[in-house]
């Protein structure tokens, strides 16, 4: 089945099987391996991408469901090599250790800051409840998002 999607600003058309998951499409067909596969059961959030501006778990969506949609993956946040404030925040505040959850964390944070540019630490934790991290204990992630929020509003 033919689908047409705009991935990180560029339209592409591909022939896919209906059962192909969006995360596998992004990684194996589009070659964008920044989106990670963690649990593949919509729990961990590592596969989070934005579809038409909304954060979704791409392991629990068929690629055909995204037909016609605009998709933003972690690669699309720094198109010309200039880090996005969220990426910079995770760097500055040590919001990662192994980095496996980071692309999903950053894209979930992206939606959070779009909806609420000045979140409290509690609101950041609620906004990231769909993303698991097994290294940081979350404290540094909350600080990274606060750093980005401050940078983006300055």
């Amino acid at each position, binding site marked *: 089945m033919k689908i047409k999607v705009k991935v990180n600003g560029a339209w592409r058309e591909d022939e896919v099987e209906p*059962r192909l*998951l969006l995360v596998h499409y992004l990684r194996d067909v589009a070659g964008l391996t920044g989106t990670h596969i963690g649990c593949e059961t919509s729990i961990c959030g590592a596969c989070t991408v934005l579809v038409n501006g909304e*954060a979704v*778990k791409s392991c*629990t969506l068929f690629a055909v*469901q995204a037909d016609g949609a605009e998709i933003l993956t972690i690669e699309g946040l720094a198109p010309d090599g200039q880090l996005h404030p969220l990426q910079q925040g995770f760097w500055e505040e040590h919001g990662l250790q192994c980095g496996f959850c980071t692309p999903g964390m950053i894209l979930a944070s992206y939606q959070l800051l779009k909806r609420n540019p000045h979140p409290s630490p509690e609101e950041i934790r609620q906004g990231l*409840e*769909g993303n698991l991290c097994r290294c940081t204990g979350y404290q540094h992630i909350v600080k990274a998002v606060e750093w980005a929020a401050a940078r983006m509003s300055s």
Partner: protein
Amino acid sequence: MQAFEYARPKTAQEAVALLASEWGKSELLAGGSDLLSRMKDDVSAPQRIVSLSGVHELRGIAASARGLRLGALVTLDELETHPAVREHYAGIAQAVEQVGGPQIRNVGTVGGNLCQRPRCWYYRNGFGLLATYKGRPLVPDGDNRYHAIFGNEGPAYFVSPSSLAPILIALGASLRLLGPDGPRDLPVEQFFVTPKSEAEREHAIKPNEVITEVLVPPANGTKSGFYEILQKESLDWPLAMAAVALQMEGRRVEKARVVLGQVAPVPWPSAEAEEALKGKMVSEEVAEEAGRAAASKATPLSKNKYKVQLARVAVKRAVLLAAGLVKKGEV
């Protein structure tokens, strides 16, 4: 996951025509959170998936003097953030704001929340809705910590998983279904049934019917509240929940509706709790009494007595929230 044919109808009528007249052959796809999980585990293996994403008539929230009309494809996120829902139907907003996480609420829909299949781990591992092995029920002597504490005389022991159903029932909402013979309306309460055999479903929907909308009567000052108890606050399945709708004269309850969730194969209205509230001035003691009444007839299984206490507390806190005696986060 097994291969399937993917159909994208443009109207609800077309969707109905694409559905098979027997269970298992075809499945409706809205957000897909539950369906994809079942398909990955081979619990469901439809030959055809009918995607509703192009059926625009199923979208949209309309709030008017006639009440609230929710298209079946309204997402939980849209519902949670809608001003009229937050103002007049606080219990609905409270019920959806803890479903899954933000990513799940972005895709999860009203229709899908009502139609999701039970979380029972026997069912999810291929032992069928009634969880049997060689004709023997597995739940009574098995790991039944998450199973029913009401309505569990068998053969069904699973719990109804919908977070929206209890509050919709408490508010007197109904569903509109479209099938080959046209539309029909059904109170949400009657949509949930306890299956008596493996051939039956827990929903009073036919294999070739589609939920098109949910209709909630005008609030007219009805105060509603919802409280659920989870093992951990983030992204977890609730262990017990309670939805309460109160018609009040000042602080005195004229009429109460109390419906529990996650405690029985269907959303569980509690006539005992409703009776305990009727005519009373709401206070912490009265709310406590309603909780005690709600839990009084529970029949827990071998490993889920703790859920009786959770149900009791959920009712108490939902009453206090509905009456406005506490705010969310204070209970």
